[in-house]
């Protein structure tokens, strides 16, 4: 066990898997000598050489398109997109190609690959260095979407993602890259995809979150506890495929749900959580399903702290649900 940041856990996972499986290659803009603009790939080129950790020209389309090809050939590409906000030039390759290759070829060709990208707000990045667009990928059958919120999960889920037989969008909450630390098991400790994590047990209301919103919910839950409200927190970890069983179990127990996400509210993945609950658990619901989310605007710079859901807004959501 070592105490690592989320960022160090990313590097640790990449290094661990590159050592274990010589088919794994890591590439993207500035990932080589520079070690990535966040230093997530620091030291990899040195250890594994330019053939296994390399820079690309400035084209996300090329990064993902060539990753699809590498996956087709049978090596294991782990492509970095420098910020999730810059993934759109590659959108066609992701949704038309990676996501549909297995299906459209009847399994003749497959795309086991990982696209890693730092995402979300909290670093004063403004419109184009703060987005949380996980919903686009969740709405695209054929993709898996994974978002860790702790160092241990970051490592374990990334290991599983690289080993997965299908394309995985692996989103790293950059806001907690360096601020959240935790024990991370050394060596090969994958965490299975498709399983949520019960962060905190509680009886009155379930907070459902992922990524950097998990610690925000923990803070809100602590404040709620001080007011006598007992919150359960579910960290989804894998958005697709979703651990629906865990979701339903928790809400059937508490009877109330607050969904917290930082993406724009409308048609965000939190809407899917609400919809599932409204379809499958309405009989247990004792209150409105509250969503605490980003606003339906682009991401602002100076006022980002007002834009992002914080413990205060989550607490207001909790009170709305519990006070109903």
């Amino acid at each position, binding site marked *: 066990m070592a105490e690592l940041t989320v960022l160090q856990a990313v590097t640790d996972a990449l290094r661990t898997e590159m050592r274990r499986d010589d088919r794994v290659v890591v590439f993207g803009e500035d990932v080589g000598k520079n070690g990535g603009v966040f230093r997530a790939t620091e030291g990899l080129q040195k250890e594994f050489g330019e053939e296994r950790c390399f820079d690309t020209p400035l084209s996300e389309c090329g990064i993902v398109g060539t990753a*699809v090809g590498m996956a087709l050939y049978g090596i294991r590409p782990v492509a970095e997109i420098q910020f999730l906000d810059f993934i759109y*030039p590659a959108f066609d*390759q992701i949704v038309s190609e990676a996501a549909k290759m297995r299906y459209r070829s009847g399994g*003749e060709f497959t795309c086991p690959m990982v696209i890693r990208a730092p995402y979300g707000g909290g670093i004063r990045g403004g419109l184009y260095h703060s987005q949380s667009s996980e919903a686009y990928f969740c709405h695209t059958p054929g993709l898996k979407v994974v978002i860790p919120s702790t160092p241990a999960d970051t490592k374990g889920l990334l290991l599983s993602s690289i080993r997965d037989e299908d394309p995985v969008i692996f989103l790293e909450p950059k806001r907690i890259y360096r601020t959240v630390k935790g024990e991370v098991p050394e060596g090969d400790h994958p965490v299975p995809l498709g399983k949520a994590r019960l962060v905190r047990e509680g009886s009155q209301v379930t907070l459902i979150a992922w990524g950097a919103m998990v610690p925000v919910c923990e803070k809100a839950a602590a404040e709620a506890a001080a007011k006598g409200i007992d919150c359960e927190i579910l960290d989804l970890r894998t958005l697709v495929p979703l651990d629906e069983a865990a979701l339903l179990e928790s809400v059937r127990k508490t009877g109330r749900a607050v969904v917290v996400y930082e993406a724009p509210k409308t048609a965000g993945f939190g809407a899917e959580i609400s919809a599932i609950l409204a379809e499958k658990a309405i009989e247990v619901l004792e209150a409105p399903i509250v969503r605490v989310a980003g606003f339906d605007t682009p991401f602002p710079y100076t006022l980002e702290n007002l834009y992002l859901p914080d413990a205060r807004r989550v607490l207001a959501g909790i009170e709305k649900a519990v006070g109903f």
Partner: protein
Amino acid sequence: MAGTLRPARTKQASEPGPDGRAELGLLQVIGADGAAAKTVEPELPVEDLQRMYRTMVLIRTLDERALKLQRAGRIGFYVSCLGQEAAQVGSAQAFEERDWIFPTYRDPAIALHRGIPVVELLRQCFGNARDRVRGRQMPVHYAFREIRFVSISSPIGTQLTQAVGVAHAARIRRDPVVVAAYCGDGATSSNDFHAGLNFAGVWKAPVVFLCVNNQWAISCPSAKQTASETYAAKAVAYGMPGVRVDGNDVLAVYRATKEAADRARRGEGPTLIEALTYRMGSHSSSDDAARYRPSEEWEAWKAKDPIDRFRRYLARRRAWSEDFEHEVVAGASAEVQAAIEEAEGTPVPAIETIFTDVYAEMPPHLREQLEELRRAEAAGRGEEEKGEFPL
């Protein structure tokens, strides 16, 4: 003024002369009369030449029949490659078995030339239970793993970056594999053309890019597609050689492709080949070229038919006879006819094929949806509403 690079020439589609040094650098081997320019004539055994001819006749036979099937409503859609047989077969002949092919929907002859029987193509066109891609794609979107003929996609150009990925991966693995990446003239405007060729140039990836310039992208002629002198000239932007070849001359295509493939295999990097040809049919069974295309152009290209031209060459080499022709044509017809019968007689895919192959393992939500659909089906089908496919 200093520093100005001026495009030197302006004609887009030139008429090649009968030698290897035609206008705009168009490589040609077989003249209109079937005589080969000796300096550039490739050394291919007669069996190979005859096999190439067979494939060309076979695809033409299939195209003709399949278009009729479509007109009769027996298949939903079809794309013919009429007039482009030489570009496919000449290039296909230049690759080795271990090489990977990224084709477009207009390159089925490559699959045939690499040994896929016609019936496999027709199962796909019928979208039946024996279709490799399980009835999931529109006709002509083939995929054949065993010949490394990668799944065809409708979005234009996407194969080009993928091809570079395969080539780069093969190099990393030290496999002497070359990748053939096909695209149309329209596809040169795509994002992936730019990214693919750029990455290939920087990585010196072992790829041969084959731009089959049939001079139209649906109704868009080359003059509206790009202001570049030629498609081959685009290679300059990526630091790789650009080669322009008569695409109706199967041996010229073979020669240029073979040289490029050899270069790639030697580790000397990618090449862009432009094969100048003509789309003799409409874009697809949903299109009517008469709406936008001058008929004189078509007439002029009719005279340059690649099969006729190759036949004249073979005859000169005494590799062709009336008997041989008869055998080839009859064989093609019989194979196509038998294939249609089998493919049409095969039922549609099973319901679960809607849900399988989305992921390696079916996740719970898809299992649930499959069960839901099974229950609904058990309760009886509604009537089918059938759409009309326009492209």
